């Protein structure tokens, strides 16, 4: 932690950045911190409660953050993949941001619980994690802790997905309708997503209005289908949408499924290499077409 604080202090005092975006302790657990004064760097922390994907603050649409000046941002592996997404899709330039990578052994599923990190309490995304040490970064701090002895071998979501695939279409329909019916269309999922950066979301477009905006099951289904399509091959599984959802819709489950589809069909996983194109926008002559008559 000291390493992180000292690095932030150095970056700020040398004027290399104007703001360090990291984590600090707040009244209800950990929260994002925007440190602009080198003297304040002692606030910065990193521990398993630091689940937030701070890459979201790099989106050019976040104008209040942008006004703070050139940022340094603390990124875990999954967050670095989101930064790569922003680079890949021309939303930021690499030189306009300093990336402070943190070695991450996993974060809590429920950061407010403040529980010890165990196989039980670890976030599901961390079971699937393939990037404990981001390499896209300018600086890398922290230490990798030994793997959790009781780390589950299989993602809990993957187990759930197996159960869902075994259901009949009617049961799957009922399952998802039960979930989507709670959606109030507050769009917290969208706002917290680093890769939902459109200036005008298709959901807010009125001519024509493809997506019905009132929170009824029909419009809700359309919204969640289209958002999943837009994130296909782009979602970095940071899990922020599900965490932000006040209706507790298992969005992580939905996007995990889409990731499985994309990986099975196009052998693609989101990476932190901005040069690797996303699978949408390219094609292969050999793409499977078993579903086409």
């Amino acid at each position, binding site marked *: 932690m000291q390493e992180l604080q000292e690095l932030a202090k150095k970056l700020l005092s040398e004027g290399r950045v104007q703001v360090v975006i990291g984590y600090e302790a707040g009244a209800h657990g950990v929260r994002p911190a925007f440190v602009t004064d080198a003297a304040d760097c002692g606030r910065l922390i990193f521990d398993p409660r630091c689940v937030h994907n701070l890459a979201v603050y790099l989106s*050019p649409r976040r104008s209040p953050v942008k006004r703070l000046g050139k940022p340094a941002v603390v990124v875990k592996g999954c967050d670095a993949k989101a930064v790569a997404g922003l680079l890949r*899709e*021309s*939303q930021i330039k690499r030189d306009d941001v300093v990336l402070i990578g943190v070695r991450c052994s996993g974060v809590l599923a429920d950061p407010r619980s403040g529980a010890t990190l165990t196989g039980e309490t670890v976030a599901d995304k961390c079971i699937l994690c393939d990037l404990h040490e981001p390499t896209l970064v300018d600086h890398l701090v922290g230490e990798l802790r030994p793997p959790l002895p009781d780390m589950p071998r299989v993602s809990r979501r993957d187990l759930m997905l197996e159960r869902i695939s075994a259901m009949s279409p009617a049961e799957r329909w009922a399952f998802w309708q039960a979930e989507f019916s709670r959606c109030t269309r507050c769009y917290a999922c969208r706002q917290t997503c680093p890769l939902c*950066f*459109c*200036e*005008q*979301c*298709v959901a807010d*477009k009125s*001519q*024509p209005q*493809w997506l019905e905006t009132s929170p009824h099951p029909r419009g809700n289904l359309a919204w969640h289908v289209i958002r999943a399509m*837009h994130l296909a091959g782009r979602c970095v599984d940071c899990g922020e949408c599900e965490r932000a959802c006040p209706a507790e819709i298992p969005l992580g489950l939905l996007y995990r499924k889409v990731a499985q589809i994309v990986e099975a069909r196009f052998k693609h996983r989101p990476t932190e290499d901005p040069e690797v*194109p996303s699978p*949408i*926008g*390219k094609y292969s002559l050999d793409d499977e077409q078993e579903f086409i008559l």
Partner: protein
Amino acid sequence: MARIGVFVCHCGENISRTVDTAAVAQALGEMPGVAHSTDYKYMCSDPGQSLIQAAIAEQKLDGVVVAACSPHMHEKTFRRAAANAGLNPFLCEMANIREQCSWIHDDREAATAKAIDLVRMIVEKVKHNQPLQPIHIPVTRRALVIGGGIAGIQAALDIADGGCEVVLVEKEPSIGGHMSQLSETFPTLDCSQCILTPRMVEVYQHPRIKLLSYSEVESLEGFIGNFKVTIRQKARFVDESKCNGCGDCTKKCPQKKIPSEFDAGLGTRTAIFVPFPQAVPNIPVIDRANCLLFKGRAKGKKKDVCGICARTCTRGAIDYDQEDRLVTEEVGAIVVATGYQLYTIGKIQPKEYLRGYGEYGYGEIPDVIDGLQFERLASASGPTAGEIRRPSDGKVPKTVVFLQCIGSRDPAKGIEYCSKICCMYVAKHTMLYQHKVHDGQAVVFFMDVRAGGKGYDEFTRRAMNEGALYLRGRVSKMYRDGEVIKVVGYDTLSGEQIVLDADMVVLATAMMPQLGIESLAQTLSVSYDQYGFINEAHPKLRPVETNTAGVFVAGACQAPRDIPDSVAMASAAASKILSLFSNAELSREPMVAHVNPATCTGCFHCERVCHFGAIQRKEVRDRQGNLIKVIAEVNEGVCQGCGTCQATCPSKSIELAGFTDAQVFSAINAIFA
């Protein structure tokens, strides 16, 4: 409220037999926004068209829907009729109730109900149609031809003869390409130089052709009709305006033992050289890598160690301090005709997926040569003045073994395709050899003889009849045994292993695109296949166009091609270009995409899916000049109107005119109205 006119056609009885056209007209008449609805026996007839035109005027219609046959049949007819009545033609659309309704259903009730739906959909669509104007793009009537082989020469001459200027760029010091190295050509056995040289001279003397030899395309900007190309003219160290091609400098050059590229390494040249006597332009070039003076300068010697050529030249044309020059040319169309190179046989390969043939001893056994080297041996202008003498000791070989499909059709060696020309040139080689060495025996190992083409099969049969021994099978190994080369092969027809004593072996190696073609293709934004061959826009219907409008392809850079094919492609590309140049402006349908700058976020998914490179990046700045964002912009001259960008755009900030979201949305809604 819209004022749409609906015109339901009976098509004689073709439609009215199964669709109640009066009922369709009536149902549509009740639809909001439909100001006029009627049916008639033949809408496409003159009275039918007059009916529409009269209604446009009298009813002040702002949209027309003709419910009749397929738009592929009569959309142009009715749009023209609407235009003649003063309505923008793109406000007129057709509902297909014949091919897709009356002709495929016999249940009158169901067919009528479907027809009503189909017309409603189009009416709702037309309510959202916008008047569109054809797009006009100015055209620079000047072409760039890249590559001065036979394909490039043909294309340049055809375009220039058609009255337009041509810039011909050739990377070598002379035009002529591979054809200039050939001795005779199949299937007529006429001398290659004899038919090629006059064309080369014609290029040089043509008032409308600007030849830039020893030059390469550096970069390209613009789009169809309006390209700006930057060309690097490499330093020759000889001033073209002063040199008269006397050749004194080449005779005096002390560096005489450099393997000649033109003679495929079998002959030698000097450091200042003209690649071959008939070269065009006949102006030497100094090969820096082998010139004593430049070698000395490279070592940092203060004083030049040579300079004989400059002292020899009476015209003062030698300029050791010449530098590469960049020239810019404006052209309206481009022909890519960069040709081929041969598969390299040895173990060291230019690309990872290629595997050489170590087992054939190429490069180790001097008398194992490739097809182009044999051409040079057989050529009257070659290193042996046309006598077939083997490279090692100059003896006349009495048994020559030819191996076909070296590289080609051999996935294990990295190339799956057939190089197409080798069966023919091997047959030619056996004949040339046996004509010159009367007691010689030509033996050919082949997999298949593929001789499709006019006079081609007859030609290969002639080779066999004239005494060449054709053995079906592959050679597994070759090694030197004293003076001879042991060729170990397998004859699959007799089922026997064969060991032959050959005096010389000729490998018919595969044709590959020129190395570095990928970077040229990227410069020109044209696509290429896994081997680097330039992709044609459509394998059947657009064989000489590329995915980039205004860039055409000819010859062996597109696929293995022989001379007649290359020339035919070149002429085809030239005629495409001349038809493009026949108007001062390029006029095209306005069905192109447009970006909404207010909502475009600049993620450039559209750019990634656009096969035609129509998406450009545009900076949006505020009044103080601060960059706000970079967004997509469509080049109307390049967009082909497929709409893939729109389906991909997450925020729907790009719209294809004629098929906008509002139009499709309304059509979908209409079905269940």
